[in-house]
């Protein structure tokens, strides 16, 4: 049993995998490196000490004391690293469990509401339907928040796996415009989508691109003014696909613009206006960066915003 534990502790790749850290950040590996460093330091200091001090016993004593001090300091530091890595691992495990445990009842709720609204189990009165729709809308908000938090944890754990495949951005955008039609109609928005003919597909993750485009389109709608315009543009520029979305909405205050891609940040002029996690643009930027792309924007308060991104074609 003890041998098994010792062997487990010495298994560097397994220990690093446990903490999800690269080898050079793994506490056990660092301990090994420091151990080698201490041995080398001890030998060098003993050799040098022998040159200047006659009594080898004194040299040995000084060298061993030095080695002992270095060992203690190293042990303390590496132990701290190990504790931090363990806390991080537990935090990650905890959040995974919580998120999963939240997702399950939210899905149950969502599908039960969908089943009721469908009318399959009897006619729903208008007033009842209103309340069901409120339930559905709020449930959807919670689902989106849990989804955003899940993506955020994956980004922070560096486990946001991007599966690259050929993706038609034109098709994705058209589908999303269709999906958002109720919100677009509610605000009487005019949406124009211009794209060049024969645009190549990009190498990207279909689901992640859907998240990116959904976030940008959702923002363009949500922060627009009544009867405003949304213009979407897609074109090839050199070795990249260029995407742009602009609206005539509330814009981003100048002082908030440098923070707009930060986690949980929401601009001053939207906090009281609508619900949002403040994670959308952070997630969007993280996904695009992971795909080798870039994102930027121009905005003026009360005039509107224009967000753009580029993605390499290959």
């Amino acid at each position, binding site marked *: 049993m003890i041998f098994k534990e010792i062997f487990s502790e010495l298994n560097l790749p397994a220990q690093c995998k446990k903490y999800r850290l690269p080898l050079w950040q793994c506490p056990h590996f660092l301990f090994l490196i420091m151990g080698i460093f201490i041995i080398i330091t001890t030998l060098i200091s003993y050799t040098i000490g022998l040159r200047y001090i006659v009594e080898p016993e004194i040299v040995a004593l000084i060298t061993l004391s030095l080695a002992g001090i270095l060992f203690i300091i190293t042990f303390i530091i590496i132990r701290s690293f190990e504790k931090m890595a363990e806390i991080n691992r537990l935090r990650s495990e905890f959040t995974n469990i919580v998120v999963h445990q939240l997702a399950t009842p*939210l899905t*149950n709720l*969502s*599908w039960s509401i969908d*089943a009721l609204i*469908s009318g*399959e189990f009897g006619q729903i009165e208008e007033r009842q339907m209103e309340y069901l729709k409120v339930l559905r809308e709020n449930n959807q908000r919670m689902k989106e928040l849990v*989804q955003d938090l899940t993506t955020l944890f994956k980004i922070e754990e560096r486990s946001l796996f991007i599966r690259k495949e050929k993706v038609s951005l034109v098709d994705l955008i058209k589908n999303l415009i269709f999906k958002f039609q109720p919100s677009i109609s509610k605000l009487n928005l005019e949406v124009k989508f211009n794209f060049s003919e024969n645009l190549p597909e990009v190498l990207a993750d279909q*689901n992640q691109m859907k998240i990116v485009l959904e976030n940008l389109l959702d923002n363009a709608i949500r922060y627009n003014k009544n009867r405003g315009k949304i213009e979407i543009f897609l074109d090839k520029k050199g070795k990249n696909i260029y995407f742009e979305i602009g609206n005539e909405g509330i814009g981003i205050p100048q002082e908030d613009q440098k923070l707009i891609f930060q986690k949980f940040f929401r601009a001053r002029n939207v906090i009281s206006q609508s619900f949002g996690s403040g994670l959308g643009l952070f997630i969007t930027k993280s996904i695009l960066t992971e795909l080798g792309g870039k994102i930027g924007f121009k905005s003026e308060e009360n005039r509107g915003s224009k967000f753009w991104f580029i993605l390499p074609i290959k």
Partner: protein
Amino acid sequence: MKKILFIEDESALQKTFKDLLEKEGYEMLSAFDGQSGLKLAKEKKPDLILLDLILPKLHGFEVLKKLKEDQETKGIPIIVLTNLEKIEDVDKALELGATTYLVKALYNLEEVLEKIKKALEK
């Protein structure tokens, strides 16, 4: 009448799917844990299995593996219906022989029912 076996420990979901799919003319079989699911699959030979992964008594991956190893059940199409969305889980399920992997949180009910009906048409 086509038979669908739903292996899922959440009784609310079992009820929703049973009510809706029986209305569509399917025969619904329910199992609330992995072991009963395996047993029911062998006994009743359904036309389709909907399989959750986090299950009591026997994990969904084990159920999937055993279903695909057994001569009597290996030909039954299996839709994994779960809230686990790590890519390792998706890859593992597909490698073990799942036909489709659906993350519950990413689909509405109508979309899931459509996928079930399409799987049964094949």
